């Protein structure tokens, strides 16, 4: 019965899907796989110990935390708000797109400004809606809903596809160690290089899509009046 070796994978899939404690899932899957795979208790502990020590590179984020918090304390978020605040009279689609570029570039340096709660809500949303309100109209409720959705989407996509360009990000390190356990040794810098066209394409295509979507929505809800602003 070779199939029983897959129990660990089943545990991972079902465990995550049912939102069980992540560490409990991984530990159970490790124990079950080691026992049914014939590693035994000693084999389990030795494999766990060896691979954890071999993967200490993934703890590099703790070293980076030595400055992350202090950067925040010294006004990083305020500087970022000021940087994007220099843009005046832009349409919602343009504000979202510019934020996407800024977030993508900083993500490649592993720098974040506080997420949806810390940055999108207090800084990006007022900028995006301000352009519509500047023409003397109240923002349409459905348009506002879509601006919120697009801002969050831009936030996520720029971060996901920007951060893979940071050498030493968790994604690249996990790929490196997964490949190493299969006998393929790869360099972090090569993993980053391969991702550059993908990162640029992903952020670019999202900006274009949101820009066009916003343009269509403005036409639908406010007629042509707002268009003149561009």
């Amino acid at each position, binding site marked *: 019965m070779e199939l029983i*070796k897959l129990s660990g994978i089943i545990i991972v899939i079902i465990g995550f899907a049912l939102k069980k404690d992540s560490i409990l899932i991984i530990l159970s899957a490790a124990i079950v796989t080691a026992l049914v795979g014939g*590693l035994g208790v000693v*084999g389990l502990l030795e494999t766990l*110990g060896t691979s954890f020590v071999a993967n*200490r590179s993934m703890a590099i984020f703790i070293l980076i935390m030595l400055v992350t918090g202090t950067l925040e304390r*010294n006004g990083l978020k305020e500087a970022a708000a000021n940087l994007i605040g220099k843009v005046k009279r832009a349409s919602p689609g343009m504000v979202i797109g510019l934020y996407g570029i800024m977030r993508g570039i900083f993500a490649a340096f592993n720098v974040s400004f506080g997420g949806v709660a810390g940055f999108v809500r207090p800084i990006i949303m007022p900028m995006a809606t301000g352009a519509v309100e500047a023409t003397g109209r109240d923002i349409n409720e459905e348009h506002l809903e879509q601006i919120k959705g697009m801002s969050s*989407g831009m936030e996520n996509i720029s971060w*996901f596809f920007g951060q893979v360009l940071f050498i030493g990000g968790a994604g690249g390190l996990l790929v490196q160690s*997964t490949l190493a356990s299969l006998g393929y040794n790869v360099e972090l810098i090569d993993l980053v290089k*391969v991702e550059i066209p993908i990162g640029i394409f992903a952020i670019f295509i999202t900006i274009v899509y949101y820009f066009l979507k916003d343009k269509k929505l403005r036409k639908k809800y406010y007629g042509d009046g707002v268009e003149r602003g561009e």
Partner: protein
Amino acid sequence: MGFFTDPEILIGAKLLEVLYMIIGLVTIYTGVKNGMDEKNPSRTGTAIFWCSLGIVLAFGRLIPPIINGIIIIIMTIPSILNKVKVGKQNAPTQEEMEKSYDKIGMKIFIPALAIGVFAIIFALFTDMGALVGVGAGVFASIVILMIFSPNNKPGVFLRDSERLLSTVGPLSMLPMLLASLGAIFTAAGVGEVIASLVGNIIPQGNVNIGIIVYALGMMLFSMIMGNAFAAITVMTVGIGAPFVLAYGANPVVIGMVGLTAGYCGTLCTPMAANFNIVPVAMLEMKDRMGVIKNQIVPAGIIMIFQIVYMILLK
């Protein structure tokens, strides 16, 4: 200390070991600080978690593997029992951050970008490796911040890192534990079993079909698990290695783009609540799926681009 004086071992490997010791000591500090913190509702559990993690990070190379394995099991217990908590935190006030911004201004971007710049320089122009570059960048960033303001004393950096580490908590160990799980899957021969199963469906030897199945599998598994990191371990061992890499495809392209194929799945699922559901609440949106609906079209286009890219560059 033979490791550090051995001339056979590269200077990069030695420096990296020094960085791991610093990382371990910061982690042990987090454990000790919380263990003595009366404001922490679970002092013992929190201290056990961070101290055992710190010991493996700092000194794991000197400890026999089986002992490391036991310490890691001990580490997971308080986490599973939900006994790792946050204590008293000294977060910066809005006033403090604005006052600092008035003083430092846009120059704050210099230390913020230093880490990434150093990582690139070290990766391209030295043989010490990107991670030693990250360490050098962190050091440079600390020095620049200290020059900017006399308030940035060494203790401030240490306390701020403890604050962030405690906030992200045990879940920050997820990638490391998943990588270890991948190693256990490989050691137990899980890959071979999946390969023989899937081999009945996918024709062996057709790398392009293998790539498509691997990429779509990454997307689908990430959607089900809400997490591309968990998916990449399982999918690469089960599909990526036997059906794509075994036929000579480039592991750099397949592994890395496989991960970002998984990210496209993460964009399309309510299982990834942190990214897709929490913002709905924070922005007071009406439609619970409002963020996901705005991500499906870009995710689909990016997915197609990635599959073509993998096939062309394999």
